[in-house]
């Protein structure tokens, strides 16, 4: 059975395709920071929800899970933001325009964007965590009138590590969203906040009884952010985290992404904090 990068959308084929990659092509690449790139990939017709991920394949090396970081409603190539931390991610970030890349997906659960209409929404991103949240941000901004207060709180290592900087500056020009950025440390050219992202939660404006929080970043940061959100009075059922574990198959058959009772490829990555809280406090789970 040969596959090129066009594929049918029948249900049976989709189930099979989830196990075998299609071949897509890199349409464009952009360097975001010293170790992070955004690749847009032509994969034909492809629908996804904000928060979902694909398995991208680097020839001869292997597959890695990569969050979709583009607008789920926009037609055109699929946008992925990748940090080069290992052999496969490094190889994928070095692909050139026109290069083939293997692709399987989309997998995983979605940010509850449609279900949060009528609520205030806090989007809390740490480091690379802004990438899996960006599709949700696009949807929130596109249908702004359906939500209450909307705020993006973004923490990262230093000003040089700010992702999507120009886009954030464009977002900042909107009058109807609050965007606060903080860094762990900075030189004096930075005039913004310095300190942990949880400090931004203390200063954000929202009604804790009618707020949904979407949180994505390193696990330590998510734990402390969730704790600060709880202290601020938001119920655990209204807080969503995007979890991460080792992943090989993405179809709930290899066992690697287990997190206690949860299979992150199937029950996550986006999960509700009421379910996660007892698991997050267990060490080495």
């Amino acid at each position: 059975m040969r596959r090129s990068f066009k594929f049918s959308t029948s249900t049976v084929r989709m189930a099979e395709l989830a196990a075998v990659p299609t071949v897509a092509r890199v349409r464009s690449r952009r360097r975001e920071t010293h170790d992070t790139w955004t690749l847009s990939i032509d994969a034909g017709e492809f629908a996804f929800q904000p928060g979902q991920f694909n398995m991208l394949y680097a020839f001869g090396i292997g597959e890695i899970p990569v969050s979709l970081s583009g607008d789920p409603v926009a037609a055109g190539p699929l946008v992925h933001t990748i940090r080069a931390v290992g052999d496969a991610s490094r190889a994928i970030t070095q692909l050139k325009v026109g290069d083939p890349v293997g692709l399987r997906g989309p997998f995983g659960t979605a940010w509850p964007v449609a279900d949060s209409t009528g609520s205030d929404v806090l989007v809390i991103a740490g480091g690379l965590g802004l990438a899996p949240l960006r599709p949700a941000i696009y949807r929130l901004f596109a249908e702004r009138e359906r939500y209450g207060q909307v705020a993006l709180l973004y923490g990262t290592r230093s000003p040089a590590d700010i992702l999507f900087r120009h886009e954030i500056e464009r977002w900042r020009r909107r009058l109807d969203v609050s965007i606060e950025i903080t860094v762990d440390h900075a030189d004096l050219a930075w005039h913004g906040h310095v300190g942990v992202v949880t400090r931004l939660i203390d200063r954000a404006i929202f009604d804790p009884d009618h707020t949904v929080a979407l949180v994505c970043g390193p696990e330590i940061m998510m734990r402390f952010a969730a704790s600060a959100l709880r202290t601020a009075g938001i119920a655990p059922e209204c807080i969503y985290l995007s979890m991460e574990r080792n992943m090989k198959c993405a179809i709930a058959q290899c066992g690697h992404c287990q997190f206690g009772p949860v299979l992150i490829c199937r029950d996550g990555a986006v999960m509700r904090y009421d379910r996660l809280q007892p698991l997050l406090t267990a060490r080495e789970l």
Partner: protein
Amino acid sequence: MPAAQRSVLTIAGFALLVDALRARAYRVIGPTLRDQAVIYDDIGSLADLPRGWTDKQEAGQYRLTHRDDNALFGYAVGPRSWKKFLHVPEQRLWRAERSAEGMHVVAEPEPAERLAFIGVRSCELRAIAVQDRVLIEGSHPDPHYRARRKAVFVVAVNCSEPGGTCFCASMETGPRAEGGYDLALTEIAADEEPRFVVDIRSEAGAALLRELPHRDATSDEIAAAETVIAEAARKMGRTMPAAAEVPALLRRNLDHPRWEEVAGRCLTCGNCTMVCPTCFCTTVDDIPALDGSVSEHVQRWDSCFAMDFSYLHGGSVRASPRSRYRQWMTHKLSTWWDQFGSSGCVGCGRCITWCPVGIDITEEVAAIHATDSSKA
């Protein structure tokens, strides 16, 4: 079952059963004797079976000894399970071919092999059903496992001689074979002229039996078969304590001091995961050819005891032996329920027998139960 529906197969008839399956182009797998253990492998005829042998199993111990009779199936289970043939240890999933025009991905075709299993015990039937749930009843069925599974012909055997580490009765997975087979045999009269009382479960089983010399079972023979099964349930070597409460017990005892204690003994060798008939974890290797023209994507068995099983961000999430032992045992007995709606354990006892230091999960559960740190 009414007497009219049960037949008796003699040893001669059983020999013809094996021949008939081979004549139908099945690859026949059954118990053989190798390396001082009962190992499921290809069998050509009745002569390949470990007739007249039995096993003595204890924690960390396995010995074969001669029986006083000629029973064909007078032993329990050995280190190999049927997963070796269904969820095979190594399976190419696809290969990527690279050329000037780009890349093509070629999926591995489904296997055409037809397998016939002889001597599948009740715990093993349940184990196969457990793996079915994981591998073909989810949203992305594994086509290779499914193809082998759909084509397999199963001759089950009701245990007459449970092992010292068996606990299927307390797990409610045996000793009687309840389904998932084509024919089930209960060996009776092993001390005189061994023969089999046959249960038929499928059309294919009925069709095969029709080709073999058989007769109706007498009421004595049926009673003898029932006695074998009842005795087997009585002779279990072990029990899983309070089996119905185990999932919740382990869920609320993730910090029990027993985990540290068992970690002091566990070598994290992973034997338990290799012999367990339900362990399904795999990893993938990418194997490029030296000239870079093709790369194979090959799935192989993995174990949660491996250090890099939980590798993330430069290290393992489960680095300590304590966390890895806890992962295996709580997955098998507790979180498997959350993930797949059943227990992962079928009470076959292999993990107890083949652990080099004799760790016994029934004993570990009992220890946690005894000092349960917080009642439900």
